[in-house]
C-alpha cells in the first residue's frame, strides 16, 4: 500500500477499463441505455427544428418575404400617400448589400365586386418577373396561371374570395379602390388565376394584379409602396440592420418578417416552450433509466468486491474503480448517443418524415407533409453535462457502499 499515488491511479484506471471490457454485455447495455436516450433527445430537437424551419420558410415564401421596406408607418396604416419617395435609392442600397432576390409592390385597400356581391380585399400590384425570386405565390395558383409580363388588367384572386364572388376564370371583376387623393376609382379586370393554397390569409382577402396595372389605375406612375426581399434565415437580422443603416435618413421602415408578424415568432417560441417542457421530462426518463441500469449492475457485484478486498485492495480503491467505470460508461454513452442521434437526424433529414400518413392530406398550416429534421445542437452541452453528472452519481453511491464493505460478509452475501 506504499505505492506512489500516480501508480495507484494508473492501476485503478487499468482495472476499471478491464472490468468494462471483460463484461462486454453489461457495458454495452448500460452504454446503450444512455446512447438511446440521448439520441432520441437529439432526434426530437432535430424534428422540431426541421418543422419550424419548414413552417417559417413556407410562411415567408407564401407572400410576405423575409424583409420588407416601406415608407415609415405604411405597415401600420397602408395608405397610398405613403409611397416610397425614391425607389431607386432603396434598390441601390439593397443591391449594395449583395441582395439580388427582391421585388417591388404597390399595395392598397379596395373592394372586389362581381355581379352578385362585393368583397373587401387588399390590392397588390406585383412585378410579374421579379416576384418569383422572392415568394412562391405563383406555385399556389391551382386554377389558371400567374401574371405574365405582357398581361394588362389581369387579376388573381384567392379561392375563397373567388367562390364568394361567384366568379370563374375569364370573368370580369370590378376592382374599386382609392387613388392617393382619396377619390374612388374603379376598373374592370379579367380573372386569370385563382390561388388554392388552403393557407390562412392567402385564399381570402387578396386581389393581385401587375404592378403597372395598379400604378395606372391609382394614378401613381413609377411609384411603389413596398420592396420585398428574400434572404437566408440566418442573415435576416444583420441584413435588416445593414439596410436600416444605409437608408437612415430616408424616412423608411425596414421590417423583417418577425417585426411584421410577431405572432408567428411568438408561436414558434411558445411551441418551443412546450417542446422543452416535454424534453425536460424525457431527460428525466433518460436519467432514471441510466441510474437504474448502473445501480443494478454495480450493486450485484458485491461478491466481486469482497474478493478484491480479501486480496488487499482498500475500500477507497474499489470506490475509485467504480467511479472511473461509471464516468467511462457515461462518456462512451454520450459519444455513441451523439453519433446515433446524428445518424438518425441525417438519415431522416435525407428522406424526410412523412406526416401525411398522420395528417391524411398534403399542405397543412404552412407545413409540408414531408418534414426534414435539422440538427440543432445548442442544447447538447447542457444535456450531455446532465447525463455525465447522472452517471457520476450512479457511480458514487455504489462506490460509497463498496468502501464500507467487510470482505468476509461481502463474499458470503454476494
Amino acid at each position, binding site marked *: 500500500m506504499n505505492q506512489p499515488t500516480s501508480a495507484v491511479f494508473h492501476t485503478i484506471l487499468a482495472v476499471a477499463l478491464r472490468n468494462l471490457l471483460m463484461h462486454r*454485455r*453489461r457495458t454495452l*447495455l448500460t452504454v*446503450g*441505455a444512455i446512447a*438511446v*436516450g440521448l439520441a*432520441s433527445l437529439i*432526434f*426530437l430537437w432535430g*424534428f422540431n427544428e426541421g418543422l419550424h424551419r419548414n413552417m417559417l420558410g413556407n410562411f415567408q415564401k407564401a407572400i410576405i418575404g423575409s424583409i420588407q421596406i416601406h415608407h415609415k408607418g405604411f405597415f*401600420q*396604416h*397602408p*395608405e397610398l400617400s405613403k409611397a416610397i419617395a425614391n425607389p431607386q435609392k432603396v434598390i441601390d442600397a439593397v443591391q449594395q448589400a449583395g441582395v439580388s432576390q427582391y421585388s417591388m409592390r404597390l399595395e392598397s*385597400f*379596395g*373592394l372586389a365586386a362581381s355581379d352578385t*356581391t*362585393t*368583397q*373587401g*380585399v*387588399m390590392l397588390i400590384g406585383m412585378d410579374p418577373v421579379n416576384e418569383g425570386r422572392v415568394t412562391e405565390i405563383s406555385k399556389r395558383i391551382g386554377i389558371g396561371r400567374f401574371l405574365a409580363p405582357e398581361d394588362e388588367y389581369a387579376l388573381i384572386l384567392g379561392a375563397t374570395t373567388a*367562390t364568394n364572388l*361567384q366568379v370563374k376564370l375569364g370573368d370580369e371583376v370590378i376592382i374599386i379602390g*382609392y387613388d392617393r387623393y382619396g377619390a374612388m376609382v374603379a376598373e374592370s379586370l379579367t380573372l386569370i388565376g385563382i390561388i388554392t393554397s*388552403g393557407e390562412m*390569409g392567402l385564399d381570402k*382577402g387578396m386581389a393581385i394584379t401587375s404592378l403597372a396595372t395598379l400604378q395606372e389605375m391609382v394614378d401613381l406612375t413609377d411609384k411603389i409602396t413596398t420592396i420585398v426581399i428574400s434572404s437566408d434565415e440566418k442573415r435576416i437580422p444583420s441584413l435588416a440592420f445593414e439596410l436600416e443603416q444605409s437608408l437612415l435618413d430616408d424616412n423608411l421602415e425596414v421590417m423583417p418578417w418577425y417585426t411584421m408578424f410577431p*405572432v408567428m415568432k*411568438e*408561436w414558434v*417560441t*411558445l411551441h418551443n*416552450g*412546450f*417542446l*422543452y*417542457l*416535454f424534453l425536460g*421530462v*424525457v431527460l*428525466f*426518463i433518460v436519467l*432514471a*433509466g441510466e441510474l*437504474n*441500469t448502473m445501480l*443494478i*449492475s454495480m*450493486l*450485484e457485484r458485491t461478491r466481486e468486491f469482497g*474478493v478484491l478486498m480479501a486480496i488487499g485492495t482498500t475500500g477507497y480503491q474499489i470506490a475509485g474503480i467504480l467511479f472511473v467505470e461509471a464516468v467511462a460508461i457515461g462518456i462512451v454513452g454520450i459519444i455513441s448517443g451523439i453519433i446515433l442521434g446524428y445518424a438518425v437526424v441525417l438519415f431522416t433529414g435525407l428522406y424526410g418524415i412523412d*406526416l401525411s400518413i*398522420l*395528417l391524411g*392530406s398534403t399542405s*397543412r*398550416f404552412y407545413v409540408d407533409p414531408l418534414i426534414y429534421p435539422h440538427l440543432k445542437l445548442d442544447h447538447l452541452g447542457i444535456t450531455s453535462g446532465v447525463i455525465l453528472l447522472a452517471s457520476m452519481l450512479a457511480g458514487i453511491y455504489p462506490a460509497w457502499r463498496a468502501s464500507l464493505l467487510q470482505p468476509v460478509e461481502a463474499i458470503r452475501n454476494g
Partner: protein
Amino acid sequence: MAESHHLGLRTYLQLAIRNLVCNRRRTLITLLTMSFGIATLTLLSALNDGWLSQMKTNFILSYTGHLQIHAKGFEASQNLNDRIKEPEEVSRLMQSYPEVVGWTQRIRTSGLASVGGSSAGVQLMATDPEQETWVTSMDQRVTQGIWLRPGMGRDLILGHTVAQNLGAELGERVILMVQRLNGEMLSEVFYLRGILETGAPQIDRSLALISLNSAQQWLQMGDSITDIVIRADRHEHTENLYRLFAQQLSGRKYEIMPWQELDPMVKQWLEFSDAYGFVILLVVIILVLIEILNTMLISLHERQKELGVIVAVGTSRLQVFFMLLLEAVMLIFIGAILGYIAGSLLVYSLADSGINLTRFANAFEFFYMDPVIHPQLTRDSAIKILGATLIAALLAGLYPAWRATHISLSKALRIQ
C-alpha cells in the same frame, strides 16, 4: 422429473414472488424504472391532450361555437339572399335539448369600414349582445373599451388589426358600407366602442361587430338572420346535437355545420398539432420501452450464475423461461399500475394551476394556444399507455427470458 413438467401456475407464482421478494433491492430498482417511465409517459400524454383540448375550446369559444345552422348554401355563397327567414322554426328547438348551453343569432356579410381617408374590407357580423355571451367568450376578449350594449344601436366593435389598419380610435366615427339584399349599397355611421383581440389572425384582421337589432333595421331584413350559433355543454356532444338537428330540420332548407367544417384551417391545425404530438409521444414511448427492456436485460445478466445453478439442479429450460416470464410480467404490471397512479396524481395536482409557459412567450394567445397548459387525462391516452405497457411486458418479458434459457451452463457457473 416427470412431475416437475407439470408444475402448476401456483408453483410458478410462488417461485416468481419469492425471487422478487428475496432480491428486494433489484426488484425495487426495476420497479422504479418502470413506474417512472410510465408515470412520465402519463404526464406527457396528459400535457399533450390538455394542450390540444385547450386549443379546441379556445377556438370554439372565440367565434364559431360548436354547431351553426344556416339557410342552405349560405356558407358557400355568403350571400344575404340565402338567409333564414323564420328563425322561430329553429329557435323553438333550442329548449328541448339539454346539451345546448347557449345559442345566438347572427347576421354575417362582408363590407367596407372607413375612418377619415383610410378604409378596410371587413367581415361584418351582427349579434345579440346578451345571447352572444352565452355562446362565445368574445365579450371577454375586448381589450380596449367596452362590449356591445343592448339597445345602443350605433355601437361598433372592431378587430384589433382592423382598428390598427384604419387608425381608428375609441369613440371615433366609423362608416360601414354594405350591400343590401337588392344589391343597393348602404352606408351608415357607427361609433367605435371596443377593440377585440382574440389572437386568431383572421378574426382580428377582419371583424366588425354590431348589434343584431340595428343590423336588421339597417339592412331592412325584418326578423331574418344568417346564422344560428350553438354551444354544446361538451365537445363530444357536437355529433349528437348535429344528428338531432338534422332529424328535425329539412335538409333542403337548412345546412347544419359542426365546427370542424366551419373552419377547415383550424381543423387542419388541430390535426397537425395532433400529428406533431403523436410523433413526439411515439419517440418517448419507444424510449420508455427500450429503457424497460434494458433494465430487465441487465438484471438478468447479473443473475446468470443463479440461473446456471437452477438449471444445474435439473430444472428444465422451459420452466426457467416461464418463471422468468412470470416475474417480468408481474414486475411490469405492478410498475405500470404504480406509475399510472403516480402519473395521474401528478396530472391532477397540476391540472388546476397548469404549467405556465408565459416565460417563453408574452402572455399571448396565438392560434388558440394557451401559454398555461392544464394537463388532462383522457380515455384515449389511457388506452395508449396501456398498449405501451402490454408491448413492454411482451418485449421485456419474452426476450430476456428467452435469452436466459440459452445460457451456457459451464460459463454461467464459472461467473464470480
